[in-house]
């Protein structure tokens, strides 16, 4: 019996030693000689990761003292939080959902970069202004570097425009123009079922940024959120945007639209409505070029500034602007090398390898000095319209996503939850906005 107990205790002890040895073993250990390993986490996977790998291969080949190990994964924010809490974060991490960025910064997930910029003598003015500094600056400090920029513009199918009797070189510029185009592009079959439309607002694109449609009606970050008093505001532009959304089921029939969108496939697949010819327009970013290349290579498509009310459209090219941000999580080990990598990646050479070539992502370069015509020529195989998006990012008339509230994710969740009831005519648009903003305010008050 004694021997039995002794055996069990010995097995237990050995198990603990084995388990804790494995748990304590880190990833990306560095050796005293050889390159410093930088672990980089981001959400680029599948064919979108080809450009990332292309860029990283170039970096690793030209920087013998640093080796970047990339892990593409979903929900990177949650994993970074867990890694920071566990004391073993990656050296560089993408912000997966930039609407959470202010909250994550406030929670101490990331390292402020101002001191690192000083040691590297880095000048932030190389990036597109005012959007870049606005996107990564919180409480006077810079918390990230742009991995890639994006502008959401109007992407449209020229052949569908032509077939509907619209000028394919003159897409809608104002809300009124859009309403006219929508009527011309909406087709029905003999049974009265909608078979095609201009733009539908239930789909992933543009449904996911419905909370920011108020920019189309003249809202600004300052009229949407009072940062000093931590209050979500309800300008008339916000109500107008949602009343405009509700005008479509009122005109075309809620059930008819519901039936039409029920046949849509998922974003990023060949069944996506814009790619499958059910929608003639899409409000989208430069990544759509890869999707078109993959699933609808014969589409004759164009890019134009997004439409807005005339007073907004007259100020210059309009759209929504944001960026994928790289950060150094709190507690990361090799911050100097991490900063070297981020400066390279968001600079001219890194963006060239990330955006261009057959495997490039076709995204908007983050730096003003990106190489001009040569860059566009190199990006042509993947995104022949990249010059349009680059033109628009220089515009001052863009709506930033996010606009900077720490409860912005809650704001988006609540408004998104109201989108379908509004489109199903189950709730008045203004009441929906009031309800959503009240719930978001409640989340903000409890932070």
């Amino acid at each position, binding site marked *: *019996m*004694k021997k*039995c*107990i002794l055996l*069990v*205790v010995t097995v*237990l002890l050995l*198990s603990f030693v084995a388990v804790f040895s494995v748990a304590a073993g880190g990833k990306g250990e560095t050796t005293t000689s050889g390159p410093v390993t930088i672990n980089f986490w981001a959400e680029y996977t599948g064919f979108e990761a080809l450009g990332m790998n292309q860029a990283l291969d170039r970096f690793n080949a030209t920087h013998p003292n640093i080796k970047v190990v990339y892990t593409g994964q979903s*929900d990177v924010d*949650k994993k970074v*939080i867990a890694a*920071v*809490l566990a004391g073993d974060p990656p050296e560089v991490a993408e912000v997966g959902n930039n609407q*959470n960025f202010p*909250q*994550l910064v*406030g*929670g*101490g*997930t990331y390292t402020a970069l101002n001191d690192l910029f000083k040691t590297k003598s880095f000048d932030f003015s190389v990036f597109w202004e005012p959007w870049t500094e606005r996107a990564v600056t919180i409480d006077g400090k810079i918390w990230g570097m742009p991995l890639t920029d994006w502008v959401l513009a109007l992407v449209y199918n020229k052949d569908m425009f032509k077939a509907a009797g619209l000028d394919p070189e003159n897409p809608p510029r104002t809300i009124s123009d859009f309403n006219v185009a929508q009527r011309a592009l909406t087709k029905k079959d003999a049974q009265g079922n909608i078979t095609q439309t201009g733009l*539908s607002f*239930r*789909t*992933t694109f543009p*449904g*996911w940024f*419905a909370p920011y449609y108020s920019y189309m009606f003249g809202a600004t970050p300052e009229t949407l959120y009072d940062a000093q008093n931590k209050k979500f505001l309800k300008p008339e532009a916000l109500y107008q945007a949602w009343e405009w959304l509700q005008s479509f089921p009122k005109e075309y029939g809620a*059930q008819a639209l*519901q*039936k039409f*969108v*029920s*046949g*849509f*496939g*998922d*974003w990023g697949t060949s*069944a996506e*409505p814009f790619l499958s010819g059910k929608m003639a327009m899409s409000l989208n970013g430069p990544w759509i070029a890869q999707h078109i290349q993959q699933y609808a290579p014969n589409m004759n498509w164009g890019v134009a500034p997004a439409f807005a009310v005339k007073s907004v459209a007259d100020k210059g090219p309009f759209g929504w602007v944001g960026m994928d941000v790289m950060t150094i999580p709190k507690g990361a080990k090799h911050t100097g090398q991490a900063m070297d990598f981020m400066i390279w990646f968001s600079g001219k050479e890194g963006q060239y390898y990330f955006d261009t070539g057959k495997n490039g992502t076709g995204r908007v370069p983050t730096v003003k000095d990106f190489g001009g015509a040569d860059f566009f020529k190199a990006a042509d195989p993947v995104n022949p319209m990249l010059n349009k998006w680059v033109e628009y990012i220089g515009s001052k008339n863009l709506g930033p996503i996010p606009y900077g509230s720490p409860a912005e*994710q*809650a704001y988006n*969740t609540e408004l*998104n*939850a*109201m*989108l*379908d*009831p509004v489109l*199903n005519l*189950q*709730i008045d648009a203004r009441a929906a906005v009031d309800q959503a903003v009240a*719930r978001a305010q*409640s*989340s903000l008050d*409890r*932070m």
Partner: protein
Amino acid sequence: MKAFVPFFTKRKMQRRLTVLAFLSLWLIGFGGLFVYAIGQTFFYSFTNFNLMNKLKWIGLGNYVHLLFADNVFWQSLGNTGFFLIIVVPGILLLSFVFALMVRRKTGLTGFASVAYFLPFVIPLAATGLVWRWMFNGQYGIVNYAIGLFGIRGPDWLTSSTWIKPGIAIAEMTLIGQYFVIFVAALQDVPRELYEAADIDGASALRKVFSVTIPMISPAFYFNLVTCFIIESQIFDLPFVITVSAGGQATIAGGPGWSSTSFAMYMYLKMFTEYDAGTASAMAMISLVIVLGISIGMIKASARLVTYDR
């Protein structure tokens, strides 16, 4: 005169230590993964913890907010109640009926058994994706099948009225584990009871209610409790079916939270808004509700479950 039996003897201590040694692994796992986790959740439910901030004690703030100021909390509770009321009896009925059907050994028994059990072993994420296309309003096979009877099927995924019934239908295909338990229990019913019932002139239905069900009542009870606990935490299937479904806004739960379950709302609070305090309070409320109902079932089982043979 009773002999004095000391409480602590060397032999008894040795025996107890042996038992403890063999139980230790499980106890460590139970303590670390269960007791500690529940204790920590209970503590967080009284704070404003969001994974990243310094903890601040707010007392019953999270509970007051949920119970008195959060209509979606009550809606998610109601949605989960709907699933429990429809899905649990539905699963038990279907698994019992199919178990009765395969009790008669025919050429198709083996195939039928595998077919009924198969949905249970396929990962729910894959099942959910398939159901999402099956429920597609225009191209889905469900509406096609309904259309054969001249009925126009609803837009399951975009309708706040039909999304819950759709998810309930999908959930009710997960009868595998309950079916297997019923099959095993049915094999244990003594044949003599059926022979005696035959002699008394009992019909097939009468035999089911008077012989089969009472004899397999422990299996019924076990399946009921298990099914209730699993379905009260319903998450995987409705989440995959509704998240970013064609035509939906990019949050899970159907139009206007219409099919958001309690577990889905808790997930949203915890992993999208990082509101760990509120999510922990929801977990505690869920624990109390499920525990309370489970205790009620245990008490009722004393009257309704036959263990003696």
